[in-house]
């Protein structure tokens, strides 16, 4: 099965950069067919198949260990990649969906409700992209209107009343750009969520499981810990949009993606996200169960830690974390998580020691 995990789940939906993988998988398939007819041909391919399987695993591992930003964007949008609804099925028990923003209507692009994750009661808010076409259309392909963000805010305030930690699952290409969205001010709805979530007296865990599409993602993305699946992306603007503006053509999406650096690795370095959640070999779409387990483990572990911290401290820490993103000292930038190199750290230590010695004297 360990070998099989690299081959299942990707049936027929190979991405451009996966062509060598597809070729190898086809070869294995052909050999397997030949193997089945062993009785007639009298030739045994089992050794070859074993070898090819091993090289397939290492090829997938190698390919996925070195995805560039544009390839990552494609994996995050893969048609077989598990969506929020899949994760809810896999990790949430007794999910009680709550509908409506109490102001205008129920926006299906955001799904919210009570649930239990490994027995812990939580409030869940997530972008709902849908799975089959009918469901996708009903929930507007995960692009929320203002109502969605207002529903999110409503259930979060409800959670506050009963001290239920909040879990946000993010996977959207962005808030919906439509006439109704503007009339009911999606900008206002997102802005309110940002300020509400920044002060909410509850532990908040956010996980970007697929696409993190700018303001639409951030609208339910302020929290104490931000985790990101290994091959998810989180960008200030879709690469296509960025290319259209700066390269004057959407065809330069690849160049734009590379420049925007929207990958988990880059964002961890910038101090914007806190953790990278490893995906199964070859991406979440090759083994959704495994991906679900990884997300479940992350949420459980993180909540256990956060729930130990007094709420006031939590909120202040959340603020300070945001406060230092892109903080500048006059004339020069100081980004978070840029840990001092060993040399400077040692220098600091010796300086501090000297000072202490002086004080004592």
């Amino acid at each position, binding site marked *: 099965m360990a070998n099989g995990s690299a081959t299942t789940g990707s049936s027929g939906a190979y991405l451009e950069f996966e062509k060598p993988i597809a070729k190898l998988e086809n070869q294995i398939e052909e050999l397997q067919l030949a193997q089945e007819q062993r009785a007639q041909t009298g030739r045994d391919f089992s050794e070859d198949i074993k070898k090819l399987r091993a090289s397939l695993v290492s090829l997938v591992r190698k390919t996925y260990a070195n995805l560039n930003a544009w390839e990552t964007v494609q994996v995050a949008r893969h048609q077989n990649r598990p969506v929020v609804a899949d994760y809810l099925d896999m990790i949430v028990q007794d999910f009680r969906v709550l509908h409506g923003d109490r102001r205008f209507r129920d926006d299906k692009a955001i799904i919210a409700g009570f649930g239990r994750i490994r027995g812990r009661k939580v409030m869940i808010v997530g972008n709902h992209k849908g799975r089959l076409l009918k469901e996708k259309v009903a929930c507007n392909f995960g692009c929320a209107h203002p109502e969605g963000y207002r529903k999110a805010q409503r259930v979060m305030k409800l959670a506050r009343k009963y001290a239920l930690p909040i879990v946000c699952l993010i996977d959207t290409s962005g808030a919906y750009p*439509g006439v109704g969205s503007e009339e009911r001010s999606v900008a206002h709805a997102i802005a309110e969520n940002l300020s509400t979530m920044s002060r909410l007296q509850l532990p908040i865990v956010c996980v970007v499981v697929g696409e993190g599409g*700018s303001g639409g993602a951030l609208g339910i993305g302020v929290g104490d810990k931000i985790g990101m699946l290994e091959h998810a992306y989180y960008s*200030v603007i879709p690469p296509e949009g960025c290319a259209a503006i700066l390269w004057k053509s959407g065809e330069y999406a690849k160049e734009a993606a590379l420049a925007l650096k929207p990958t988990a690795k880059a964002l961890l370095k910038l101090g914007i996200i806190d953790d990278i959640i490893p995906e199964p070999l070859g991406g979440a779409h090759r083994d959704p169960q495994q991906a679900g387990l990884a997300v479940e483990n992350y949420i459980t572990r993180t909540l256990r830690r956060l729930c130990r911290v007094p709420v006031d401290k939590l909120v202040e820490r959340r603020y300070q974390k945001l406060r230092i993103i892109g903080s500048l000292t006059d004339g020069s930038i100081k980004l978070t998580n840029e840990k001092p190199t060993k040399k400077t750290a040692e220098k600091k230590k010796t300086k501090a020691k000297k000072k202490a010695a002086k004080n004592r004297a």
Partner: protein
Amino acid sequence: MAKELPAAAWDGFSLRRRRDVPEGLWMRCQNCGAMLYRKAVADNFQVCPECQQHFRIDARTRIEILVDPGSFEEEDEKLESADPLKFKDLKSYKSRLADQQKKTGLKDAVVCGKAFIKGRPVSLAVMDANFIMASMGAVVGEKITRAIERAIEEEITLIICCASGGARMMEGLVSLMQMAKTSAALAKLDEAGGLYISVLTDPTTAGVAASYANLGDIVIAEPEALVGFAGPRVIWHTTKTELPKGFQTAEFVMEHGFIDMIVQRKDLRDELARLIDYCGK
């Protein structure tokens, strides 16, 4: 089917023609076509005396119009971006920044400081649409946050004159996070009981609209300013439907309940002073 939008009329943020004030002794109003003597326009707060079209103005001019003469003390003027992503499109972000700094004389797209408006102390931030469309990167986010913190510390009113094309994509997610940072700081100001008046000028859109621009205790807009989240062209492309008349103008947004009042530029100073008297300490 909706008609194709006229390409020439679009400047990337508005369906209407740009309203920058052109060079020269005389100028033509792009709205009503009247020939105007430049000085007469300047004396009229850069508003067309014929049709009341509000032209876009830079941050320095806006500050001059708003505050008591000589009272503005600038803060954090030296902050500049360090290009966290080493971003490069057809042009490198570094050189783009250098060009913009040379053109505008500013280090980035916002000017912040303390001032008096008719004797009332305020923490003031004014965005300048001439600087990469007043997009918000780390510098704008940081300076706005510091302006908010000054308002909290000194218990004075916060006024932000917004104008922006949104988050600055050349700084990637660092700029998106400035939305969360500024909104969090405003939540603190709110808890402290401080007054925040948000003034929306042409154009206030996207990331800035979805953060501090829309979080004012009082939201004021200039006449016909473009106010919205997504650009009209994006909306048109997504929905393929005709956009309503006056879509995303300040008047339209006020009609839908998201702006308190629309104030002519010449009256803005008086109006702010009055509002502060109702709410200020």
